[in-house]
């Protein structure tokens, strides 16, 4: 029996090709807006990713960093490998159960505000590896903001996911997200203080 489609059924109203700036009052040589919009704008355009690349999706990330797809134009030129200095954790590739505690440790070491992107089918839900040794999606151990499907996703798809993270950073989150109830409830459900 066919299952009804549940996701992606509403078409996007119109695709914005050029990002508009935040709303505010502009004048001769100045622009006034609220603080959280400015902070959101600054944060969104200079996210430092931590590429947690384990397998094939990591090679697509390397292609993304190259000049054809150029990840640097989104402000993510400086990739860091230390979680203490990064904003967004991009988990690319299969996470096995042996690797699960390591991912959790890396997530805990990241400082707020932090975002997580699960790139690829394996990180989102286990992918084609429905086996005893593969963690069926990293959202079993850490909260995820954006999922990018694909096996491996094309670099353009990873860019699309990253732009959604930027939108989250810019628009839909207040600066002090960590103090909201919903967030603390989510963290508690994962056992993270």
């Amino acid at each position, binding site marked *: 029996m066919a299952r009804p489609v549940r996701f992606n059924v509403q078409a996007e109203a119109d695709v914005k090709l050029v990002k508009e700036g935040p709303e505010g009052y502009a004048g001769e040589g100045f622009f006034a807006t609220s603080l959280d919009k400015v902070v959101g704008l600054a944060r969104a355009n200079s996210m430092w990713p931590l590429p947690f690349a384990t397998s094939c999706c990591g090679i697509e990330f390397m292609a993304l960093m190259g000049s054809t797809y150029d990840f640097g134009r989104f402000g993510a030129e400086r990739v860091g490998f230390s979680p203490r200095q990064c904003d967004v954790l991009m988990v690319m590739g299969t996470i096995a159960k042996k690797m699960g505690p390591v991912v959790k440790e890396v997530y805990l070491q990241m400082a707020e505000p932090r975002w997580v992107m699960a790139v690829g089918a394996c990180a989102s839900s286990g992918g084609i590896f*429905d*086996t*005893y*040794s*593969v963690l*069926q999606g990293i959202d079993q151990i850490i909260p995820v903001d954006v999922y990018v499907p694909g096996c491996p996703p094309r670099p353009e798809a990873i860019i699309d996911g990253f732009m959604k993270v930027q939108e989250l950073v810019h628009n839909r989150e207040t600066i002090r997200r960590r103090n909201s109830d919903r967030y603390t409830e989510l963290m508690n459900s994962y056992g993270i203080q």
Partner: protein
Amino acid sequence: MPLTNDIIKQKLEEHFPGQLTSFEEPYGLLTFEAPKDINLKVMQFLYDDPTLKFRFLTDLTGVHYPNRKGEELAVVYHLHNLVDNIRLRFKVFTDVNHPDVFTATSIFSSANWMERETFDFYGVNFVGHPNLKRILNVDEMDYFPMRKEFPLEDQTRADKDDAMFGRGGHIGI
């Protein structure tokens, strides 16, 4: 005289009379079985003999035959003579309740991790191995996953519908 499968078979039968069985040549590769007590002696003979010179261990793996009672676990060695370009395969069978086989690490250093992998998947205990512990699975795992009786899937997964995804731990379904 170039080395052929017949010469190898003849030399083996001379040296180990009556102990090696089931000589076959599937797809041109000489295959035979040996009792598990003499596996090291066979490998050492194949290594040292000046005409045979099988000095490269290509592969070491295990197979579980649940239907052969008393000899369920097999350890299969693939050897290669690089000079004369001949390959060879031999199998050693052991009981699943007492799966002890002598380790080949004294002859070939490459057998080290391959035996750990066979232990991890099938539970074959290699006697004399320097560091026999699990290599690919988590250390806390208490069963040997590649044996036929254990299922493939993660049993704790709740959102996949068994009927649609063909799960059930049954081979061939």
